[in-house]
């Protein structure tokens, strides 16, 4: 565990000294977008051979927002957890969408770090590094599944 924490901190220096915790082992079978949508059985990406909701396949932010819209999500302003709602935050860098995180009832967020572990963290603690910044937050009423 210490080794995993050190490895994560070396790649995400903005997490050093912050209160994050590892919540799963490494798993290359699903990515952050799948995990944010509640799916840990598949890798979600709008490229050939990979799963993507029935919407436009593009690596630009609007396509990611459209994909989440097919699952009942709509844009919202607040990053705060809202009872009875699922929330997803999409990060972007100049390269486009890079990461997605899902809000937890305790006010923190959960993220799948690429092919590695899931972590629980404060949303802003993943901003500023390779993942870029939160570009938008989307929400839907809970009890809808992909």
């Amino acid at each position: 565990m210490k080794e995993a924490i050190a490895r994560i901190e070396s790649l995400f220096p903005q997490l050093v000294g912050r209160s994050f915790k590892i919540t799963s082992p490494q798993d290359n079978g699903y990515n952050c977008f799948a995990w944010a949508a509640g799916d840990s059985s598949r890798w979600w990406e709008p490229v050939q051979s990979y799963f993507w909701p029935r919407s436009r396949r593009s690596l630009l932010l609007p396509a990611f927002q459209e994909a989440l819209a097919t699952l009942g999500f709509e844009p919202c302003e607040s990053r705060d957890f809202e009872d009875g709602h699922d929330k997803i935050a999409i990060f972007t860098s100049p390269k486009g969408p890079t990461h997605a995180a899902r809000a937890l009832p305790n006010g923190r967020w959960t993220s799948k770090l690429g092919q590695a572990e899931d972590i629980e963290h404060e949303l802003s603690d993943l901003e500023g590094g390779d993942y870029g910044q939160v570009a938008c937050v989307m929400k839907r009423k809970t009890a809808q599944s992909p």
Partner: protein
Amino acid sequence: MTTAIAHPRMQTTLGSDFDYESLRIPQSDDARKLFEAVCKATKHFLAPVLAQENDLSHRFQELAKTWRRESQYTSSVHEMSMHPAYQRIIGMGPVAIPFLLKELQRRPDHWFWALNAITGVDPVPESDRGNLPKMASAWVNWGISNKKL
């Protein structure tokens, strides 16, 4: 195996009817020199082929190791596939196919882009998209059917 050996004082061809038992204990200087020449010729024949295969395998494994280490925190297959090590594996062309398929047999990983780029095909059914074990299985089955494995 038939090998023609050129010898300063003797020429001989070793075929299936040659008495190989006699090579075990060379009885004369000529026999000993012939035995050494056969060993040397065999080594020169086999070594380049084995060395080449070993070199390709080693090259692939080193590139794969580098790619895995440096892309493990990437959530994008698109970005992973642009990694220089991954691109160099694609650049190996068809010779990389058996290595990629054996990797999928060993442990499903995101080699599908590379296989698609090299082969031009995509045997993964739509219902299995994104499911790594099933995608790997589709490719392994393709490899077996097409005698790549």
